[in-house]
């Protein structure tokens, strides 16, 4: 799967959350691009990148319940009517659109009666409408609330949750999570120092065994349920 990450942030170098996310990017199959550093957009190049991606991620801080102006400029230049739907070819059909949004306010603020008074889904409705018009699949949003208040365990979790949001199959169920880790484990073990590799392989074996056991149990259960229906 190829993922395209489009970041909109007017002061990227000063943003600790954006620098953190950049350092967390998976090494393979991800293209990262900062919109504001482009000046004018090479529309043909941007559209070609969109065509090649399977999952497109729009990543930005929430400014006044919307993305920064840079993303809107990109939309207005690159997402031309002809490209998105005008010629009835719909080149973005079935591509997934995900939103990574950072906020200065906590999660509880984004609800009716909360300090912000609206949900993130409501604030992001115009982007969801674009996705629908383009026949794309809208992914559940990936919000990062108050990054600067996160402690180390939360930041560790964020690294992998973010990587999974960029590259893991949807929906985000146990089966998909297991597959994502199983796929990465061999390379992670290979890069361990030699004295740690045996432990790595042992953990992998236990993990794979548990994965197989769960599958077998799920099969048994399906069989029992089938018989109960008879």
């Amino acid at each position: 799967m190829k993922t395209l990450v489009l970041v909109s942030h007017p002061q990227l170098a000063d943003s600790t959350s954006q620098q953190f996310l950049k350092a967390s990017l998976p090494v393979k199959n991800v293209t990262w691009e900062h919109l504001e550093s482009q000046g004018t957009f090479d529309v043909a190049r941007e559209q070609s990148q969109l065509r090649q991606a399977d999952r497109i991620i729009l990543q930005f801080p929430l400014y006044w319940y919307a993305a920064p102006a840079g993303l809107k400029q990109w939309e207005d230049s690159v997402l031309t009517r002809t490209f998105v739907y005008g010629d009835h070819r719909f080149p973005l059909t079935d591509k997934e659109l995900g939103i990574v949004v950072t906020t200065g306010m906590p999660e509880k603020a984004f609800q009716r009666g909360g300090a912000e008074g609206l949900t993130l889904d409501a604030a992001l409705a115009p982007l969801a409408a674009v996705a629908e018009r383009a026949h794309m699949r809208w992914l559940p949003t990936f919000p990062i609330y108050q990054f600067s208040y996160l402690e180390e365990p939360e930041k560790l979790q964020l690294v992998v949750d973010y990587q999974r949001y960029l590259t893991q199959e949807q929906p985000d169920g146990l089966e998909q999570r297991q597959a994502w880790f199983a796929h990465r484990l061999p390379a992670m073990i290979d890069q361990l120092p030699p004295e740690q590799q045996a432990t790595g392989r042992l953990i992998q074996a236990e993990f794979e065994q548990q994965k197989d056991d769960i599958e077998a149990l799920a099969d048994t259960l399906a069989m029992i349920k089938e018989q109960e229906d008879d």
Partner: protein
Amino acid sequence: MTEQAEWLHTQIKTLASQQAQFTDRAFWVALDKLIAEQDRRHDQLQGEVDGRTWRPDRW
């Protein structure tokens, strides 16, 4: 937590703490959490299989 699960958790925790790169540490810590989730799911499925198999009406 079973004895084996506890042992595995300790192995992963130790391995994670030995990683110099933050992103590498994150991988092993997240795997530890996933394995805990596997344990829970395993118990739940096993419980459901046992429950559905226990049919006194068919004794």
